[in-house]
């Protein structure tokens, strides 16, 4: 599924966020919309009042416009897009989906060896916050689930509180999940402020890679991160903030996986869900693959032990990003179809698989690196 396209931009000062419409709206209701003319459609003359115009065909106008669009068949009425000065058009919200995300910054305080979205040291906070505030205003219908992600969202400072407060007011029934390294929550005052927003449906997704300080800090490439994350999880729980722990499975995290879930049960027993996730071959991972790679087929015994340890204790546990043909049968009940459809693909082999319907498939970037044991069932 496509999320981006581009064309030739004119008359655009700042990036424009708006809602796609393919209809000729009455002038008074155009204020939040971006008029889109699909391939073969001749642009109408009255274009006043739209935030911008997108068109396949050449379009001469004084309004903000991107014409000669390359691809556009992914646009639907109600989608929210951002149109950049350089003619780049990114979909931020697709009205017909259940899962949505809010990308709040590219900055991060950690630098995980397998980061799928490598951080950038540029100050994007003001611009992205502005964009996201507008995006939240335009999201309709209200999404069922929304993931706040980055980068590290807590680096937004007060802007994060503003965004969550806005979400609480304008999308009160949306289930919020915020992916954070949890380190900032080690500061009691920060966590107190965060909790004071009292968002009714919010859960933090926090990664923890080892029960030992050095091992975790090495994976996230940040000294002191383990102490801060564990302290942060405790602070969060103390303030009534719900937390999930996420573990990416690779050659550095597998050896002590059972010890790690034991640590979570004994020291972080308030955790409401543990997600055990397959490695994504994207971002930093290809660079560090020699150190990270273990075929998922080769860690089934460890995974079964860890899942069994949590399940017998009634700790909710799920496995993400794994193909059923590589998972032990006993683990199937825990496997989630977790890969968003725009990131997802199946191999030619998969087409004749009997379990295809129930399988999460692969990340599209897994074409280059995946288990050698994928086979049709």
């Amino acid at each position, binding site marked *: 599924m496509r999320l981006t396209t581009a064309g030739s931009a004119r008359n655009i000062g700042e990036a424009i966020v708006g809602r796609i419409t393919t209809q000729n709206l009455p002038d008074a209701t155009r204020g939040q919309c971006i008029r889109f003319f699909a391939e073969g459609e001749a642009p109408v003359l009255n274009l006043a009042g739209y935030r911008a115009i997108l068109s396949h065909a050449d379009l001469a106008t004084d309004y903000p416009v991107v014409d000669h669009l390359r691809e556009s068949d992914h646009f639907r009425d109600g989608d929210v897009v951002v149109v950049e000065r350089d003619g780049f058009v990114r979909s931020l919200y697709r009205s017909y989906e259940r899962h949505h995300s809010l990308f709040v910054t590219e900055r991060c305080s950690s630098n995980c060896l397998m980061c799928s979205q490598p*951080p950038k040291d540029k100050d994007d906070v003001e611009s992205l916050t502005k964009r996201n505030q507008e995006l939240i205003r335009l999201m309709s219908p209200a999404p069922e689930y929304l993931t706040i992600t980055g980068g590290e969202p807590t680096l937004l400072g007060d802007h994060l509180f503003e965004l969550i407060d806005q979400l609480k007011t304008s999308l009160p029934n949306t289930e919020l999940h915020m992916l954070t390294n949890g380190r900032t929550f080690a500061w009691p005052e920060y966590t107190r402020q965060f909790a004071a927003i009292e968002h009714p449906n919010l859960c933090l997704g926090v990664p923890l890679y080892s029960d030992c300080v050095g091992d975790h800090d*090495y994976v996230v490439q940040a000294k002191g991160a383990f*102490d801060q994350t564990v*302290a942060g999880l405790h602070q969060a729980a103390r303030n009534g903030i719900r937390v999930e722990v996420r573990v990416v499975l690779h050659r550095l995290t597998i050896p002590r996986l059972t010890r790690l879930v034991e*640590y979570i049960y004994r020291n972080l*027993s308030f955790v409401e869900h543990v997600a055990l996730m397959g490695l994504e071959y994207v971002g930093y991972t290809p660079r560090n693959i020699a150190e990270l790679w273990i075929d998922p087929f080769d860690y089934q015994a460890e995974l079964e032990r860890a899942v*069994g340890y949590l399940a*017998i204790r009634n700790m909710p546990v799920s496995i993400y990003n794994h193909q059923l043909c590589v998972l032990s049968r006993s683990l199937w009940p825990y496997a989630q179809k977790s890969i968003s459809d725009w990131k997802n693909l199946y191999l030619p082999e998969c087409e004749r698989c009997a379990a295809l319907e129930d399988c999460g498939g692969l990340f599209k970037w897994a074409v280059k690196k995946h288990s050698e044991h994928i086979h049709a069932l």
Partner: protein
Amino acid sequence: MSRSFYPFENFAPAPQQVSLLPFQFTHLFGQELLVNEAGEFLFAPEGTTRSLLEGAVDVRSNLYKDLKAKHIVYDETSSPLLDVLATKIRTKYDHLSGGTRLHIFVVTLRCEHSCHYCQVSRQTAAKGEFDMSQETADRSISLMLDSPSPHVTLELQGGEPLLAFDMIQYIVPKAKEEARIRDKGLDIVVTTNLACATDEMLTYFRDEEIRISTSLDGPAFLHNKNRPRPGNDSYERAIDGIERGRAILGHSNVAALMTTTAASLDHVEEIIDEYVRRDFHTIFLRPISPYGFALKTKDRTGYEMERFLEFYKQGLAHILNINRSGYRLAEIYSQILLSKILTPQGTGYVDLQSPAGGAWNVLVYNYNGDVFASDESRMLAEMQDWTFRLGNVHKDNRRSLFTSEAALKMFEVSCNQSLAGCSDCAFQSYCGADPIYHHATQGDMYGHRPTSGFCTRNMEVIKHLFSFIKEDNPETMKIFWSWLTGSPLPAKRGTCD
């Protein structure tokens, strides 16, 4: 702008300063069992503690990582997280934070049974001087609600409390009203042999949301032998009461407890089968308490602790088999200890606490207003031993009860962390102190562990449970965990795959 990656050594320098956290250890099943203050344990190779003391454990090894993650050792890289250990210990002791929760009211000493092991003096069933007065009830209710606990349990006991049903009908509305005024939660339980329970009484309990706890010692021959009454029909009346009680109050509101007498020792499987036949899903294999008439009639009821432990082990094996066949039956004592060993939570069970549960977890208000540190304490008093009488409801308040000479003397020996024989015991964090037991059996509250029945029993039961944990049979562990979590039992053997 891309960032760089740094090598492992930058993040995980070898620790220089290894220090020990408080822990205990013992030899068990060819290994060394190390247990920290929060009850977390580690099976490690024999000699691990010695190596630690000699500084010979490789700080790069997985063993060292295990020791550190389980808060048995710390080094300069782990000190910020000692708070986490504090939180774990606080969680284990959470039951102490609220104040006394269980309050036993002895509404009458009268009883129509004459059980050999009865823990209190039996009296005629005629009304008289052995009933609680309204004034005593009023003061007891007030003292109960003076406990800082936001939620208290009122247990109506005897004697046979149903013989003083009018007093129950006086206490219940009064306690509820007082609790409402003081904004406290209140549960009420009545401990009865059910022999005299009428449908009207049971309907009253239903309407007042009072749960029933009764006695069932096993099949008819054994139950009636242990629990004589005129007509020799204790069993028949108990079963009839249980059935009617369930019909009126609902199945889950009627619980049963058994007491193991010498006559029980050869019949553990029949006792357990009786519980299954009667559709109970918990059973507590309880040794006889060395109090009250049980001490006097020792030749008829008493036995060596070693004999009880055989009974317990045989019983637990039978209970596990029953669970394997798909019927859920939890053994309560094992469940309590497994919870202490395997989970981060503490338990409120009075008899396995440090500080000991007497007064902190339970107070007993006798019919005459005397306040005791536990049910066992007032049994001693019925034998003219007032060591654990903290005061009287008509003279004392909560403060004077807890600072009475009797209380302070008891509290002094209430922590197994500071008792000889316990202070270095690997099972310390799972066990408790019991000054009342040791006073009753050894004439010394402090107690002598090598000859203590309390110690013998708990050491052996805990070791036995560890043998299952060490064996780690998936089916057995699933059964144990189903007791702890309430999850379904593992699939019945032979029915799938």
